[in-house]
């Protein structure tokens, strides 16, 4: 049920574009929703604007159909096919529980793409380091990199248990390495492939997303080796588009908004190099 109070019945994207504005919250059709592993789902909806504009690490605000739950739920774009946009999410609370029940034929409210994506201009071997639900932006990075001649993708994914995204990323990445909690963590994984990264044809650039402690470990691993590194952060958000000052992270330049200054930051920006 789309929330009756605010859902426009006109074509928001078309009307906003005509007026030279960024399209706001809109109701879009769900194309698919499937369980990838225990409590982890891949939701696909149709939205030409997000499909046409999203860059890896940009995110989408998804809204509950329950009008008592008003706040946006941000999720990184995980794949785009034509006008279809996929997200991968874990059920952690009421909103994601609700989204797990969405099915083709339903609608869902979204807004995006939001935030700044990874900087992937440089020719490089992009090392995609994901922890847990950090997979989505990196999967999408792999999808984009697969189209390029001047760059390659090496996935280094750390899972709690089930390797729910190895198959997905294997479609795009040159190389897929992964590890589960029982075997070790992503730094162990990075250590095990360090040599090949450093001696590869293209210089390595780390793109990473995952829990904060992991990001810190990845950042110091990269800093110690002089490998450029970009981190996609999470923070509780109030709006997702920069109007509320809710989503801040401490950076070298003071508290900044994750939703517009980020979600991607370098360790240097975060002051983690000090």
């Amino acid at each position, binding site marked *: 049920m789309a929330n009756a109070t605010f859902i426009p019945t006109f074509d928001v994207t078309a009307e906003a574009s005509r007026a030279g*504005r960024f399209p706001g919250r809109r109701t879009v059709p769900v194309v698919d929703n499937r369980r990838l592993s225990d409590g982890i789902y891949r939701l696909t909806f149709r939205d030409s604007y997000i499909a046409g504009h999203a860059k890896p690490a940009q995110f989408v605000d998804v809204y509950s159909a329950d009008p008592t739950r008003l706040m*946006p739920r941000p999720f990184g774009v995980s794949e785009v096919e034509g006008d279809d946009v996929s997200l991968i999410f874990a059920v952690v609370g009421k909103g994601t529980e609700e989204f797990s029940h969405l099915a083709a034929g339903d609608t869902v409210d979204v807004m995006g793409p939001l935030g700044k994506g990874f900087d992937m201009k440089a020719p490089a071997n992009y090392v995609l380091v994901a922890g847990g639900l950090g997979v989505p932006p990196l999967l999408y990075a792999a999808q984009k990199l697969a189209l390029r001649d001047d760059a390659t993708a090496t996935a280094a994914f750390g899972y709690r248990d089930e390797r729910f995204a190895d198959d997905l990323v294997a479609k795009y990445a040159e190389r897929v390495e992964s590890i589960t909690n029982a075997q070790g963590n992503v730094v162990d994984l990075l250590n095990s492939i360090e040599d090949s990264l450093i001696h590869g044809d293209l210089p390595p650039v780390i793109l990473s997303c995952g829990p904060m402690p992991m990001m810190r470990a990845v950042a110091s691993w990269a800093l110690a080796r002089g490998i450029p590194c970009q981190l996609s952060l999470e923070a509780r958000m109030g709006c997702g588009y*920069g109007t509320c000052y809710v989503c801040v992270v401490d950076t070298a330049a003071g*508290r900044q908004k994750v939703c517009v200054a980020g979600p991607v930051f370098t360790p240097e920006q975060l002051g983690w190099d000090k």
Partner: protein
Amino acid sequence: MNKQVNVYEPHEWKHSTIVAGVEWKNPVGTASGTFQYDACHWFYDVSQMGAVTTKGVSPVPWEGNPGPRTTESPSGTVNSVGLQNPGVDHYLVDELPKLKKEGATVITNVAGHCDDDYAEVVAKLADCPADMLEINVSCPNVTHGGMSVGTDPVALNRLITRLRHITSKPLIVKLTPNVTDIVSIAKAAVDGGADALSMINTLVGMRIDIRTGEPILANRTGGVSGPAVLPVGLSFVWRVRQALPDIPIIGIGGIDSGEKALEYLYAGANAVEVGAAALYEPTAPMRVARELDDLLDSRPQLAAKLAAGQTWR
């Protein structure tokens, strides 16, 4: 039921209002802390709002509270931003010029930890192009200043009296609902020289994560706003209007439709501001303005009063 408005279409406003001598194109503004030029101008033409109220500015940059800064509550949101802002100097060279270039009617929200802070900001704003100043004595998320001044009639009166001497701009005093007796506080502000009152700021509230047993907000408590607070905001406007028939009032709290804005006007507000709704629907302030503009068509008496700077009550 309302006909749905297309917020992206250009619109000729039919019903204006006047607040403390300042004409608003329509009776709907944005609420402080939920509007930033850089974020909102992508979504709508900010000059078309009745007014836009900017984030509280302090004498120097403030970093606010640590995160997490938000949690959800039934039909509401709880925030503990703690007035993070880049300071009044930055505001004067960055946000305000952009807003004025677009032709917006601007209310500058002023924050402080103590009387000197407020005085310093108001002095710096005295000659700026902002149309009105809103003195935030009602933020529940800062330890000093903020709500503590807004809960004490004597302290409030002293502060407003002082600010009154520094500026000739219309002074709005923004009140907190976290008080026993709003009327004595409203009177203290008016006696001190306030040209208008706005209410309500957020209600103190919190949520707890039942997985950890700990408060979700790093600051433990925060301020509740959104639809949940609608009836509370209405009662504050009503009670102050009953006690002070002439002071302009800006009604705030839980507005997410033209109908709810209209309730505030009937309660005695001269205008309203839309806050939390903009967080989950960026064009909400514009939609509310458009819906209200249509609803006022069939209420010519109310519309005439507003246009003349009077209230329904």
